[in-house]
């Protein structure tokens, strides 16, 4: 995929690191002030999807793998988190761990299968596997079929913080999402991340240098799936609901759109893209089916004219790394 300039030289990165720091500070400031201005549940949804898109971006932006099936990690984590909180009465922190672990296991299996083929086939395989998991969710008893799992208790975090309070829940979501965001940033700037980028640029050469590219790809896939699962688990607690929407292929499409619109392979792109798409879905909801049409049109425009995405374009104009 086309990508934003990617300085590999250490000193250049240190020089440019300030732009990321400034942008991060602005983002945190906005997110802290946000719930006093905007409806908290809306912001929490945007945050969960921002983490989801960042996790997806880890794969497409830094390894060059297009997964068309990330809904399976998001959705199944959401189901397991919801079920364990409701039916087993687990506290929220454990429910989230159960959901996230489910996504990790799924990631190992799906990733192990999908990396056996490259490029376009990879996308088709992940899509097909996700569709299979959709049908499993449709047929399994515990998922509640068309109704989903409703009325999931948010519970008390560590037995202390009552998450039924919107502001407490917001702080919790914000902390988890920022932690996930920083973890991804750490991963892409680690030696491991450099190898991922090398595989993206030229897999054959990376292999010839002695890197077991399949293993790197699999680890990246599992990391991405796990973080997508974390986002799905949080989302289930925020809305106290897990449903078929979360595992449907349209969800995989949404997360691709968020990342593409924000900017593939940029640090902040997925966050901005998620905010845009969620806002769009929110405000255009009265237009019914036209939301789909508009979303599809945005897709087309992004691919044809706007491949760097919002953040990618800003970074290009300001000549900084974002």
């Amino acid at each position: 995929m086309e990508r934003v300039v990617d300085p590999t030289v250490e000193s250049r990165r240190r020089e440019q690191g300030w732009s990321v720091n400034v942008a991060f500070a602005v983002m945190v400031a906005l997110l802290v002030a946000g719930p006093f201005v905007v409806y908290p549940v809306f912001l929490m949804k945007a945050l969960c999807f921002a983490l989801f898109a960042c996790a997806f971006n880890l794969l497409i932006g830094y390894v060059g793998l297009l997964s068309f099936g990330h809904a399976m990690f998001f959705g199944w984590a959401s189901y397991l988190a919801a079920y364990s909180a409701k039916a087993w009465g687990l506290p929220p922190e454990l429910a989230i761990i159960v959901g996230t672990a489910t996504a990790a296991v799924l990631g190992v299996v799906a990733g192990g299968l999908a990396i056996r083929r490259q490029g376009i086939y990879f996308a088709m395989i992940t899509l097909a596997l996700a569709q299979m998991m959709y049908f499993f969710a449709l047929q399994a008893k515990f998922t509640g079929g068309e109704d989903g799992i409703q009325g999931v208790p948010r519970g008390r975090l560590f037995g202390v913080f009552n998450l039924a309070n919107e502001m407490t829940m917001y702080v919790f979501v914000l902390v988890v999402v920022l932690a996930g965001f920083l973890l991804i940033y750490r991963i892409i700037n680690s030696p491991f991340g450099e190898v991922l980028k090398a595989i993206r640029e030229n897999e054959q050469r990376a292999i010839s240098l002695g890197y077991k590219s399949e293993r790197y790809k699999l680890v990246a896939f599992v990391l991405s799936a796990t973080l997508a699962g974390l986002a799905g688990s949080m989302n289930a607690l925020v809305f106290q609901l897990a449903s078929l929407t979360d595992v449907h292929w349209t969800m995989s499409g949404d997360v691709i759109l968020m990342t593409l619109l924000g900017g593939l392979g940029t640090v902040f792109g997925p966050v901005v893209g998620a905010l845009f798409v969620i806002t769009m879905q929110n405000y255009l909801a009265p237009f019914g089916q036209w939301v789909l049409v508009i979303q599809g049109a945005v897709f087309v425009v992004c691919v044809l004219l706007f491949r760097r995405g919002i953040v990618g374009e800003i970074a290009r104009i300001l000549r900084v790394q974002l």
Partner: protein
Amino acid sequence: MFEIFGIPSQALFGQLLLGLINGSFYALLSLGLAVIFGMLNIINFTHGAQYMMGAFAAYLLLQHVGVGYWEALVVAPIAVGATGMLIERLFLQHLRKLDPLYGLLLTFGLAIVIEGVFRNYYGSSGLPYQVPEALRGGRNLGFMFLPNYRAWVIVFSLAVCLATWFAIERTQLGSYLRAATENPVLVRAFGINVPRMVTLTYGFGVGLAALAGVMAAPIYNVSPQMGSDLIIVVFAVVVIGGMGSIMGAIITGFTLGIVEGLTKVFYPEASNTVIFVIMAIVLLIRPAGLFGRSA
């Protein structure tokens, strides 16, 4: 009436027949995908939507113009194929130098747009389309009742598949096509208009999808979302068969239709997922696909 493995023959052969019909659609659609992929190096996500457009074209022709099934069988693929060529000229040709993933994303976006527009005007519930007069009724084969229309779909789609195979593998035009797939620059140097060939190829692949849609209209209801779930199954079929071989796509399509039909008889819970499971197994044993050349 007799029983096989405790299943009444009527049920078994009935599902087998339905499996063969689904198989014909899988074959036609994966054939179109393979032809397009060979020439454009793009996976056409819009394929499902174009199949749906074929069915809608038949429906609209009958409702508003009074044009029946037989004419629709010719008109609909040409009309939808023409919209396909427009898409190729307007959008896809600009992506030729980019990573093929962008083609997938673009066609995905187009599929959403098309499906959304149809949903907006026709809702999500299916619209009925009558079986044409000449093919109503059926015949009793002794062990099962064979509706004429279903027999027609299987025979006709097999004929179309084989004709396509013949055209690509055995004619001069086909040899240009195969040559252009291998090395477009060289073929251009020989004075063949490759960009026009690319446009026509895309139109042809789309036309095949629309043809499948027209044939599907009397069997399933005509609905805006009829293509989106189907296309994902067809992707799995393509992964299983590999896109290297035209005949491979045909054989895989029909075979998987039959397998799915049999699953409906013996273990109905798995009928939705069996093709995906087979895909996973094939990936473990033969990652390049059954008929594929290793990537």
